[in-house]
């Protein structure tokens, strides 16, 4: 055990892969934030909504319009400094906090991609990714060690492996493999694409993409780890992600993975690459000395963190009855592009003056918020409670019932939330299965 830890966590290795990760990731963050701004999504996601769906029962303080733009300006500035490696030890945690704030404002904006970015930024808070090719290195007179303990790189590899592997496991599902859903619904709508377009309307295409995607996700971490297949593996990473980039509106995520998987290449490859374009100096041989206390701390943190990472995607086993339907344990589990789910919901409100009326949330929420809420039970519950808090009449709201229908993977709409249940009597921690109708 200690041998394994010694080898994978504390062996001295060259820091060059971390340099690649820092520069590529930082540049993508900068680009991603500017793109987000350019498309008007700051307005759309953070300024327009008058109500935000909160995570885990706590509400983030919502900033004013100017405040939100300031946060994004700060984010762009920090990403640039991050890329350049300027005061990296301070900039990386600040960038993590800024991004974390943006992500925690509203659950309806949750994307697994952003969750992955958050984790990567969390890692960067602890790893010396600005040892070389950085403003910090230029600033410091004395020569800095070019070697780092192996864990600083391996945590990235393990995390990327987890993302792929669990995304693949999630695809071992009869809808995905046997019925080629939801790709059978999505691909024909892309029939306008040149070259592959006509083929996409053929159901065979959905099967090929479903199976290839599943096999790819499950196997790619190992293909990238194994030296003889690594170059082929990376080639398929590029092909796979560019294909998904063409087919689906998934933003910069394909590029995040294309760049992050570069970390699987050995340090020499990175060193060679950077030396060729920058004429950087040779590697210093000095090794960081590591105390046993340090080793214990790092080992403990790595083991705890990744145990959680392994358990989170599996928590649905104990929580959920039908994961796609109740979504108990769906988030933070690397379930991407996995189902087509659309819904319609409105609320019937009763008060103690004997009045009954309807609240149509599609009038008060943005389109994104509404479409997300309509299929996610916890958000429906949150909004029901919000309606009660909005009440300004003299009569107290006594009951809120949801009239909701959801279509899962194109199988026809079915009633979703039990219309007979008063959602005001359900607390956030209530048992979801008791107020959701069975699929």
């Amino acid at each position, binding site marked *: 055990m200690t041998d394994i830890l010694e080898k994978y966590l504390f062996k001295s290795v060259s820091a060059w892969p971390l340099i690649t990760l820092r520069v590529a990731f930082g540049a993508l963050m900068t680009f991603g934030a500017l793109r987000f701004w350019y*498309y008007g999504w700051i307005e*759309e*996601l953070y300024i327009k909504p008058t109500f935000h769906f909160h995570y885990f029962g706590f509400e983030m303080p919502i900033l004013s319009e100017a405040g939100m733009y300031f946060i994004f300006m700060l984010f762009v500035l920090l990403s640039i400094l991050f890329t350049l490696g300027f005061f990296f030890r301070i900039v990386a945690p600040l960038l993590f906090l800024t991004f974390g704030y943006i992500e925690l404002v509203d659950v309806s*904006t949750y*994307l697994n*991609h952003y969750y992955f970015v958050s984790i990567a930024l969390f890692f960067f808070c602890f790893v010396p990714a600005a040892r070389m090719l950085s403003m910090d290195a230029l600033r410091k007179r004395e020569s800095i060690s070019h070697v780092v303990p192996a864990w600083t790189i391996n945590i990235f590899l393990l995390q990327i492996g987890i993302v792929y592997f669990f995304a693949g496991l999630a695809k071992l599902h009869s809808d995905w493999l046997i019925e080629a859903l*939801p790709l059978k*619904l*999505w*691909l*024909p*709508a*892309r*029939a*306008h694409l040149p070259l*592959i377009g*006509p*083929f996409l*309307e*053929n159901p*065979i*295409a959905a099967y*090929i993409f479903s199976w*290839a995607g599943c*096999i*790819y996700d499950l*196997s790619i971490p190992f*293909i990238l780890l194994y030296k003889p*297949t690594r170059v*082929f593996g990376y080639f398929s990473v590029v*092909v796979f992600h560019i294909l998904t980039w063409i087919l689906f509106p*998934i*933003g910069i*995520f394909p590029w995040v993975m294309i760049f992050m998987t570069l970390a699987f290449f050995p340090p020499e490859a990175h060193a060679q690459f950077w030396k060729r374009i920058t004429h950087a100096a040779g590697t210093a041989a000095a090794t960081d000395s590591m105390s046993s206390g340090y080793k214990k701390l790092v080992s403990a943190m790595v083991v705890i963190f990744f145990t959680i990472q392994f358990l989170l995607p599996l928590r649905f086993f104990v929580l959920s009855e039908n994961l796609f339907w109740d979504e108990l344990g769906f988030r933070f589990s690397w*379930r*991407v*592009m*996995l*189902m*087509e789910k*659309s*819904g*319609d919901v409105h609320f019937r409100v009763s008060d103690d003056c004997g*009045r*009954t*009326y*309807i609240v*149509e949330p*599609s*009038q008060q929420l943005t*389109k*994104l918020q509404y*479409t997300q809420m309509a299929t996610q039970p916890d958000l429906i519950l949150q909004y029901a409670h919000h309606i009660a808090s909005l009440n300004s009449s003299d009569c107290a709201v006594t009951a809120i019932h949801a009239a909701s*229908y*959801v*279509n899962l993977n*194109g199988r*026809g*709409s*079915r009633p979703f939330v039990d219309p007979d249940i008063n959602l005001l009597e359900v607390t956030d921690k209530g048992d979801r299965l008791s107020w959701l109708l069975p699929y």
Partner: protein
Amino acid sequence: MRTNHLIGIAIIALLFSSCKDKKEDETQTESFATLLIRTEADLIAPALSDFESAAAQFADAAAIFDVSTTAQNLTQVQEAFIDAYVAWQKVSQFRYGPATEFDILGKMNTFPTDYIQIENAIQSGLTSGLPNATKGLPAIDYLLFHQPNDEILAQLFDQSRKNYLLARITEVSTLATQYKTAWANGYKSTFVNADGPSVTGGLSLLANGLIEDYEQLKREKVALPLGLLTLGIELPEKVEGYYSQQSMTLILAQLDGVQNLFNNGDSYGLDDLLDARDAWHSPSNMLLSERINQQLDEARVALAFIISPLSEAIGTDPEIVENAYNELQQVVVLLKTDMISALGVSVTSTDNDGD
């Protein structure tokens, strides 16, 4: 290594099959683009023409009334008005391109109309630079019907009032022509060629425009006056066509407009595309297109039970109106969840990872 080979095989299979199946697929791809081409040619263009000519006839009747202000000519104007209002109900589904460019929905049909502002404008002789709530069809509805006909006729001998009315009618007819022309010259090809599933793609515009229009029918024309959205307080003055008492005619015309757009008559419509995609409604065990048509028909039957005018039925038979609302709501579910999923156009403008 084995998985390695599998991927290789999959990629090769993909390349091969894309060559092999090409012929067969071309007809299918046609069906995808055909929907936009046929809908534009067989439904949108004719509906826009109908609306334009109805608006033109309305303007003609008004011109005659202007010269010869008689009770008989007033009735002619009123009849032409209702025809134009009915024709409008069949073009309000195209809520994109020229519609947004000209703010056609706001200018044509903002109701309830603001009669206090209208009266003020008439008093001060103002005919232009007015907000949407003082113009369009609902304003004309007020001017032509808010009193018994002999009173209306007497009022319209006031030149300022007549000028205001004529300016509104000219506006409607000019806008109808602009709307049609903008489609014919330019937007038509933009629409037909805007394929793909993005929010700006033709299929997404078509489907989402249809849903938005239908939801407006359900919400603003039925639920709101009935008081369903307002603590149960009935708001009969919020019905469409309040003064002419034509609410039910207009609602039924819009329902026809929605259903015609869905089926595109005997031509290639959303119903055919859904059938081509084998869209099935499993809870009722029938084709989704059939289920949607069935529910639209049920909504129509439920609406037919309402004794016109709607503004009075709300007070006398609220449960009949609410029943119609419930039937209308059933269609919303089918369109918004089932149709959208089956067409693969459930996209938002932001990034997505499908969860």
